């Protein structure tokens, strides 16, 4: 009994806390109290998540009908995503307390920020496809207020775009769920429980259904063709919101894909079919396209959004290879990309708060304003480019070697090639900020910096510390990846 409660608690605790925060008008006047409560809830939540992940029970919360039930369980994948979500949420939450002093209506932001965390933990702990779908839809609806927080015309349009892309993706996926419910159990079990013999004549339809699910859940992960919401939604959202959108919420699309392919239908059922080939093609296209668009984009947050489009498709590419090495590489890239992209978005937010600059060409001489923050930006960037010993190198190594040994024909060579080109482009769109920041060139006078007395204006400690932790963690994981990789390989071995 007690274990059951421990498993469910981290789902409902932040949701209740968020609703409580918004329902009590007293917090609107007393800002310090509100900030204290948010921090405390996030910290306690981290403990609750850890305790939930250590349970070994299956909890059926509610059976709608015999075939539709809300079931939760913690397994390896839940551990990975749950820990990642809870820690990223805590750090970005601490950052946002400082950041949101520059925005209005912070109570609503914090309220929904907490609610979304509960929903995400529910998503991570779900033990069947129905539960996953419920929380997937709830995630879209509850994260919407974070996107359109500013309520400007642009923000509202971006919010609606986010909503409709996500809902369209979810309904595409629902088609697959409808189909799968007729042929197999929707419970997750490592390696999938689908018996190919059952399919019979509807095998062609089965493949279409799986493809619909990949594209549909891929919408959240920013996979072509449903990637359009990402570059629109990220720049208008407040920086901590874009950080968690990019770092965690896009990954929930990845989580759904993992659950479908590796825990329901099983990788064998689509190996070598047109579905696998098209899937890999789409991810490689997205990787290249995202990097290219990021390279051409002058607005920093939008550039980072395009970078997310490209990087999350690295993960999907690794999953599409249906091979243990690439699978481990993809899982490790989930962690690394999340840490790095959070660091980068938080830096972009710090720049906006301190200077109001959004375009990269305005940021010449940034090194004079916030030299230490820019240094951490550089550390994180190197990780994303994949320069050893930074963490991105590890995941890319596994992805590329997985591709080479996957035996997927042309993709096993084309994949690593695209990854290399994209890494080059990544360096091309991230590092100029560092270079121009520290070495603005001899013609740079820095009138604006002097006029506004911006020189040496590092962000406040609450904003700086999360950035430092994210960037340092990405570096540490790159230097000592051993235990993480072993854990991921054990998951991979179970599902293959």
């Amino acid at each position, binding site marked *: 009994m007690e274990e059951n409660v421990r498993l469910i608690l981290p789902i409902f605790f932040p949701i209740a806390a968020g609703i409580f925060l918004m329902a009590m008008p007293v917090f609107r006047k007393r800002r310090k109290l509100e900030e204290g409560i948010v921090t405390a809830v996030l910290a306690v939540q981290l403990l609750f998540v850890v305790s939930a992940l250590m349970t070994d029970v299956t909890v059926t919360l509610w059976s709608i009908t015999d075939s539709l039930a809300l079931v939760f369980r913690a397994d390896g994948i839940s551990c990975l995503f749950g820990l990642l979500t809870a820690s990223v949420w805590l750090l970005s939450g601490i950052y946002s307390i400082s950041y949101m002093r520059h925005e209005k209506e912070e109570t609503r932001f914090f309220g929904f920020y907490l609610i979304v965390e509960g929903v995400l933990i529910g998503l991570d702990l779900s033990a069947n496809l129905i539960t996953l779908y419920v929380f997937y839809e*709830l995630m879209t609806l509850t994260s919407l207020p974070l996107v359109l927080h*500013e309520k400007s015309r642009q923000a509202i349009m971006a919010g609606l775009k986010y909503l409709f892309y996500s809902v369209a993706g979810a309904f595409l996926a629902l088609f697959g769920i*409808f189909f799968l419910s007729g042929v197999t159990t929707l419970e997750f079990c490592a390696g999938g429980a689908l018996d190919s013999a059952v399919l019979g004549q509807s095998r062609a339809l089965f493949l279409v259904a799986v493809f619909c699910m990949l594209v549909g859940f891929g919408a959240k992960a920013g996979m072509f063709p449903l990637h359009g919401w990402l570059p629109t939604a990220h720049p208008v959202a407040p920086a901590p919101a874009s950080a968690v959108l990019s770092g965690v919420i896009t990954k929930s699309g990845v989580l759904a894909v993992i659950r479908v392919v590796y825990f329901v239908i099983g990788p064998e059922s689509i190996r070598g079919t047109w579905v696998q080939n098209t899937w890999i093609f789409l991810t490689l296209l997205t990787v290249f396209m995202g990097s290219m668009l990021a390279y051409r984009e002058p607005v920093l947050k939008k550039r980072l959004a395009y970078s997310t489009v490209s990087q999350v498709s690295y993960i999907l590419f690794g999953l599409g290879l249906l091979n243990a090495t690439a699978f481990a590489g993809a899982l490790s890239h989930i962690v690394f990309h999340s840490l790095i992209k959070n660091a980068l978005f938080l830096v972009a937010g710090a720049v906006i708060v301190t200077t109001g600059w959004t375009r990269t060409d305005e940021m010449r001489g940034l090194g004079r304003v916030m030299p230490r923050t820019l240094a951490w930006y550089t550390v994180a960037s190197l990780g994303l480019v994949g320069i050893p010993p930074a963490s991105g190198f590890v995941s890319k190594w596994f992805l590329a070697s997985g591709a080479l040994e996957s035996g997927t024909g042309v993709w096993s060579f084309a994949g690593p090639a695209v990854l290399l080109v994209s890494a080059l482009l990544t360096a091309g769109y991230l590092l100029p900020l560092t270079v121009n920041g520290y070495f603005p060139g001899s013609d740079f006078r820095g009138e604006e910096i002097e006029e506004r007395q911006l020189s040496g204006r590092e962000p406040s400690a609450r904003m700086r510390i999360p950035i430092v932790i994210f960037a340092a963690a990405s570096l540490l994981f790159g230097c000592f990846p051993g235990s993480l990789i072993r854990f991921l390989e054990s998951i991979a071995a179970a599902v293959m």
Partner: protein
Amino acid sequence: MKGFLLTVPVLLPLMGGGILLLAKLAGHRRIGGKCLERVTLGVVSFNSLLVLLLLCSDMWGRRVVLFRLYSNLSVMFKLDLMGGFFAGLIAVLWPLATLFSLAYMREEKRKGTFFAYYVMTYGVTLGIALAGNLVTLYIFYEMLTLVTFPLVLFPLSREAVLASRTYLYYSIGGAAFAFIGIIFVLVFSSTGTSEFIAGGILSTQAMTQQRDMLLLVYVLAFFGFGVKAALLPCYVWLPRATVAPTPVTALLHAVAVVKSGAFAVMRFTYFSFGASFLRGSWAQYTVMAAALLTILFGSTMAVKEIHWKRRLAYSTVSNLSYILFGAAIMTPFGLAAALCHMAAHAFMKICSFFCAGAVMHQTGKNYVYELDGLGKRMPATFGCLTVASLSLMGIPLFAGFVSKWNLCGAALSYGSSIVEEGKWGAFLPVLGVAVILYSALMTAVYMLSVLVRAYFPRVSEGSLKTAETEENDVCANCDPGWEMLVPLFIFAGVILFMGLYPGPFLELFGRIGGAAA
């Protein structure tokens, strides 16, 4: 003699409405105020109580012939599971809707006439639900047009006159097509009457010799009865009829009238022609395709429409065709899913319309773009609307998802069964699932864009409004009074209940479906 109890709930409201009308004609003064409200509510609630008692009693399967018109034409009532379900649905909705409309219509001048017809419609709808044969169904079907016509006409504006005329022509035209079907059923019936018997009543001889003729007649009758269910191409009357007062649009044009159309189609398909005769025929594919086209059309038009009530009316057009699509699957599971959506949609749509009505009544706003920021001023109303919208979209944990799940499940299992048989129409059920999901997306667009507007009003860049003044504006709460809120809360509660605990309902629908096909 006990069987005559069945006719009471049909005749009582008819008489009640008639007396109200006569009192009005006789120039009775007192019939304008509180007295009218009490009589109306009293008659309606008493009648609902009676219906619910009947459903709990041992009257199941009992039949009663009210009178004979001519040889095998008789007006007959029968209480079976399917009719009982529809009657129960109507009986739950009507008193709540009446409560709402009493508050809504309080300021109107000619409300005596309005409530007279409103009460009469109740009896007529119950007549359709409890009809025991096709002839009775047809008679009440025509009467339904006639008693609801004055309700559409009620505002007496030019627009209303035109709309009511359209409504009249379409309904009567549709009934004419349905009439052809009745004649054929009577002629080729194996029992000599048109009584509803699960599995159909056509004689086997006719089914082999006159197959294509009968299929053609079936298609004609489907489209004929489909007019009331707003099937393409005869949907036009429904969006136009939104000029009527909101209680009419909500109860009649989202539930009673349109669902009578769908109910008639189901009766006709499963109890007269028989699902096994139609299954796998070109007639089935035709009506299924028509339903799918209507779903596509209705949900797309709803997105385009900016008048809120008309938008909801287009949504009704598309949702009614979900029901027709379910009925056109012609398997037990298909009928069960159709009934499930019939129940779920009744609550969702009446709830959405009443929210629109509450907004119109309190603020006078009709268009979607006028709704900015109302979410904070009418929290209870928009709370209920949120529940209804999410349910219409088909988000799990709400009623709409359960019915959608069953519809798609029925379609896919039927699709895979006819693939095995090698029928050419096997792609249609699968296409149907795709169409339903497309429509769900459109539902998200047209319902959620309202909610986003209401909850997150745009802050224009140039405005000088500070947070303080905004706060003051927000404080003016203009939720309607309890008479309007109570029905809304009950509807929202039912939607949640059906979404979370659909077991008993699904079992009932499964039993109806299993018996009928």
